[in-house]
């Protein structure tokens, strides 16, 4: 009796082990914990965000009443919100346009070996490696109305006069340019790194063939390097777009949406409405307006990921 039970037990164990050796079963075992964790901590709150945006939930009351589309129509009729939408667009578009140009130049310049390259690359990487919440505070000091180091340079290069220096964060136009500058400054290194990977993956033979055909400078860049670079470069740019459109740190620390809401973006406005004012439902609705930005990026990524693979 005991022997039979032991035998079936052994048999079952062996069958289990055999099953676990199967590729599908093993893969499922390895992947599912991560998928479940992500579903619980991204999927559930994401659904909750959508639910809350249809309620009048506040920080005080546990569960809000269903209010339908009120939060969304309320947002659309709110001038500050419309401004925030527009500023998010500008903030993203201009900073990332600057990043593409600078990172493209830097990647082409850094691809060949030269003396001091390691150190120069280290300097270029600094803004990316340093925690951005901290460096943004640094810019609060660089933009200080009384002691701005940028103004010191501008005055000593005789670009502006000493008694009429710009107040970088205190006037609407200057404030917008200031936060765009900081965002561009901190995204350039990442884009450079990814572009650099793209440029270095262009085989030497392609370069040589182009040279033999007499292609130089801009011509070579436009007809040879750019098409080869495009898929990976676009992935880098889409990353920059997502992390800029959905970023809160730089505007929050430098201007917190001011002066007069002139630098209010979706994220800072959602934070002020949802956390500071406690209107969680309205805040969630405002944050959801980031979805179109995300959708564009996701579709772009999927499209170019497939193209990059086919190529």
């Amino acid at each position, binding site marked *: 009796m005991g022997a039979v039970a032991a035998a079936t037990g052994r048999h079952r164990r062996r069958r289990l082990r055999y099953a676990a*050796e199967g590729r599908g079963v093993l893969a499922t075992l390895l992947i599912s914990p991560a998928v479940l964790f992500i579903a619980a901590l991204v999927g559930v709150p994401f659904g909750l965000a959508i639910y809350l945006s249809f309620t009048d939930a506040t920080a005080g009351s546990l569960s809000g009443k269903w209010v339908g589309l009120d939060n969304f129509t309320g947002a659309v009729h709110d001038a500050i919100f419309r401004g925030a939408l527009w500023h998010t667009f500008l903030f993203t578009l201009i900073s990332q346009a600057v990043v593409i140009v600078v990172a493209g130049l*830097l990647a082409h310049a850094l691809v060949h070996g030269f003396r001091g390259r390691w150190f120069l690359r280290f300097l270029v990487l600094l803004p990316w490696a340093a925690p951005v*919440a901290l460096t943004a505070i640094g810019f609060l*000091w660089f933009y200080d109305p009384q002691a701005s180091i940028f103004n*010191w340079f501008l005055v000593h290069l005789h670009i502006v006069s000493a008694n009429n220096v710009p107040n970088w964060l205190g006037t609407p136009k200057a404030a917008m340019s200031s936060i765009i500058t900081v965002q561009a400054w901190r995204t350039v290194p990442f884009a450079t790194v990814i572009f650099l990977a793209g440029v270095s993956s262009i085989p030497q033979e392609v370069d040589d063939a182009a040279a033999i055909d007499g292609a130089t400078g801009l011509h070579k860049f436009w007809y040879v390097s750019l098409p080869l670079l495009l898929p990976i470069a676009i992935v880098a740019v889409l990353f920059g777009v997502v992390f800029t459109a959905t970023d*809160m740190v730089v505007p929050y620390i430098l201007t917190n949406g001011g002066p007069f809401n002139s630098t209010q973006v979706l994220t800072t406005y959602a934070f002020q409405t949802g956390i500071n004012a406690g209107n969680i439902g309205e805040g969630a609705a405002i944050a959801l307006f980031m*979805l179109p930005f995300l959708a564009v990026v*996701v579709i772009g990524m999927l499209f170019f990921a497939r193209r990059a693979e086919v190529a």
Partner: protein
Amino acid sequence: MAWRSRAFSYGVVVPFAALLAFPFAWMAVTSLKPEAQVYDPTKVWSFHPTLAAYGFLFHHTDYLLWLRNSCLVGLMVVVITLAFAVPAGYALARLAGRIGRALGVAIFLTYLVPPTLLFLPLSRVISQYLHLSDRLWALVVVYPSFTIPFAIWLLMGFFKTIPQELEDAALVDGCSRFGALVRIVFPISAPGILTVVIFTFSLVLNEFVYAITFISSSANRTLPVGVPTDLIRGDLFNWPGIMAAILLPSIPLALVYNLFLNRFITGFTGGAFR
């Protein structure tokens, strides 16, 4: 030709490197200035350097506490991330066909769902259901939601560079699949895993939105939230102290980034966009 390309390189890189790094140079200068002189227009560049700001930071603020909190959260998040992401990244790299690829891309896309979209619902979950308001555990629980997808993506890239033949050889030699994983695959991918550890840790050091939403008392703050909220006395900023506070974690991080950059690129671009 060679000198022309070198001239192009220096001509582009030197000015841009100077521009990108200048803020750090000016932070260093300010951090060495006596606090009373930061607004003095005659002392912009010439002054008697002092380490007073660093002393202030260590002895009169909670800076070391925030640093400790950040490291503590960082270490725990790294452990959780590896436990979930290493098996998943490996399986996704080896899982051939459309399902594996689609799943890999789907997990990666969740990394793009921003904290600024999730912090409002999560703040309710943290306070009402988990009762973790103002505790570091709130961050330990929530941070893996973005570090795991990021780590899976990098690890997929690394594991794809390890030839399948190596594992097959181990299987022929009588290793189980799991044994091949532990004895062959993990040792070879150790540098890749180390890269994931470093970049996961730095994601934690960077996180701001959740930390400022979930944590309310000074003693529980992490570095990126403690410095902007607590180093300001009333309306008075101690600028040399703040500059020192920024530089101290930034420089070592940048050095480590530089060391692991090539591996980061391999993992990042090797996932599926290739």
